[in-house]
């Protein structure tokens, strides 16, 4: 329908002074490009400014931090702020805890969500689709609705102030979001592969392990990256379940430190920078997985 109209109109335009129209078109594009580019640069500067200010503050002396003048380059450059920051809080303990929880969650999520997604995406069994709808509906529940009974459950199990409440759910399905994502992906795998394997006597688990998993590397990488980001970021979970200092994660530790009296602003900024740095590194290494993952969920969602 569209094609015919376009061809007709293009032919007409070409006949009626297409030359001039082409020039006008190119001129408009140039203006647009220049305006667009300027806007991009200005907005980028605006977006990066808070980062720059944080790093700048983290290297300032107290006098400069609290002064009323806006200075960007600290002088002197107080690298010692970072050393002080690391000793002011049990930084390495918090770091180790964050890493532990994150690593465990990634492992748990990858294995359990792929297993479950495999069941929903590659296997045929009665009740499968109804159960999947249930899974989707569960995603719509705000966490606050289940938060309290789950907390009480963990209380009774004696798991408060351990990592278990943060990690065990990752092993039990890994979250409906990831099951959904992986299931959509598994469904795109060609059926013939599985049929051929089945004819060759491959078990269901064998097909999962040797066919589905290896072929889903991009989707699995996305799950890894998202889990990493979510767990490193997680605040409410640790806030509710982690009480003693030796167990706190970086997110919680940073917040706890900030509400202490006498917490130095420069040190706070330094810790923030240190907390963001690992994520930035992961992001730059795995950039396309972030973007691909979001696109996958946004378009299929």
């Amino acid at each position, binding site marked *: 329908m569209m094609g015919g109209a*376009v061809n007709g109109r293009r032919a007409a335009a070409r006949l009626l002074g297409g030359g001039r129209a082409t020039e006008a078109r190119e001129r408009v594009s140039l203006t647009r490009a220049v305006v667009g580019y300027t806007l991009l640069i200005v907005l980028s500067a605006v977006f990066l400014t808070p980062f720059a*200010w944080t790093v700048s503050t983290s290297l300032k002396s107290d006098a400069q931090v*609290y002064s009323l003048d806006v200075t960007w380059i600290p002088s002197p450059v107080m690298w010692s702020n970072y050393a002080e920051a690391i000793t002011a809080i049990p930084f390495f303990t918090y770091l180790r805890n964050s890493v532990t929880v994150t690593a465990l969650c990634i492992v748990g999520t990858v294995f359990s969500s792929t297993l479950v997604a495999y069941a929903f995406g590659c296997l045929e069994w009665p009740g499968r689709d109804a159960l999947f709808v249930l899974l989707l509906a569960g995603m719509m529940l705000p966490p606050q*609705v289940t*938060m309290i009974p789950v907390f009480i459950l963990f209380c009774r199990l004696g798991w408060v102030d351990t990592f278990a409440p943060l990690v065990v759910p990752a092993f039990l399905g890994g979250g409906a979001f990831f099951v959904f994502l992986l299931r959509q992906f598994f469904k795109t795998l060609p059926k013939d592969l599985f049929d051929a394997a089945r004819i060759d006597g491959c078990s269901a688990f064998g097909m999962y392990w040797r066919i589905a998993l290896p072929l889903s590397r991009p989707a699995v990488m996305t799950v890894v990256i998202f889990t990493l980001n979510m767990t490193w970021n997680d605040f*409410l979970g640790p806030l509710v379940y982690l009480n003693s200092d030796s167990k706190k994660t970086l997110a919680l530790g940073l*917040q706890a430190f*900030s509400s202490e009296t006498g917490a130095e602003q420069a040190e706070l900024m330094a810790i923030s920078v240190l907390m963001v740095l690992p994520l930035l590194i992961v992001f730059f290494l795995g950039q396309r997985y972030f973007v691909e993952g979001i696109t996958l969920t946004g378009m299929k969602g």
Partner: protein
Amino acid sequence: MTTSERRHLRNGLLFALPYLIGVAAFVVYPLVMSVYYSFCRYNIISSPVWIGLDNYRELFFNDPVFLKAVYNTLYYTAFAVPLGLAFSIGLAMLLNLRTPGVAVFRTVFFLPSIVPMVASAMLWLWVLNPESGLVNGLLRQVAGIDGPGWLADEHWSKPSLVLMSLWGLGTAMVIFLAGLSDVPQALYEVARIDGAGPWRTFRHVTLPMLTPTILFNLVMGLIGAFQYFTQVYVMTGGRGGPVDSTMFYALYLYRNSFYYLRMGYACAMAWMLFVLIFVCTAAVFASSRRWVYYHGE
């Protein structure tokens, strides 16, 4: 059931077992208990005591903080979500110009959304500091005016939070970018040949084709805004800002559960939140039939 059907069922259930246990333990059981608790007075230490509709009655008729929390949350949602949508579409359109180095810009815009919320809350708390913060400092130096109290001022605290939320738009922007790339070039050609300027092209070609993506981001934005918690907690030390001006719904819920140990009351709040989210989402979906255009279906 035939043997092979039974085998398939067994396999299916076996593979889905982690999820089945998870959903039973962390979704179904808590859901049921949460409904029960909402009709009780429960402080963990002693057993729940059935009090019928008292929690709900108190919420709506006897709790000014609750009403403030609802107001604050609705205020934030009403501003943050539409502004967020407009801004992220704008950013996506800018990136869609495909100027040289666009990947760098995309990264810059996306970066803030992966910063942990705690860190970004600390960051912005300092940027918006009324005395030594960046914003007021610049206002003083460049424009010679005394900036407002931002988060420390009860009239500016929510607008500050709305402003902050615009920084973390990366995710929505990326989704819009993907949606924009789905718009067929042919449509742009036709619009150009028909003499449409940039605004009319946007209004009559780009926007309609983007409506499915807008719907998705709108719903996700609404759900996120109603549950807004971490930044508020970090920035106000869990207190809800100057004169309760940033006492958001999720924060008040949290305080009722873990500060005041009013578990039953908090459960009632949680269910009201669910109802609110459900009603809004359903309304959006119902209206979507009128303004969303699903091309390619």
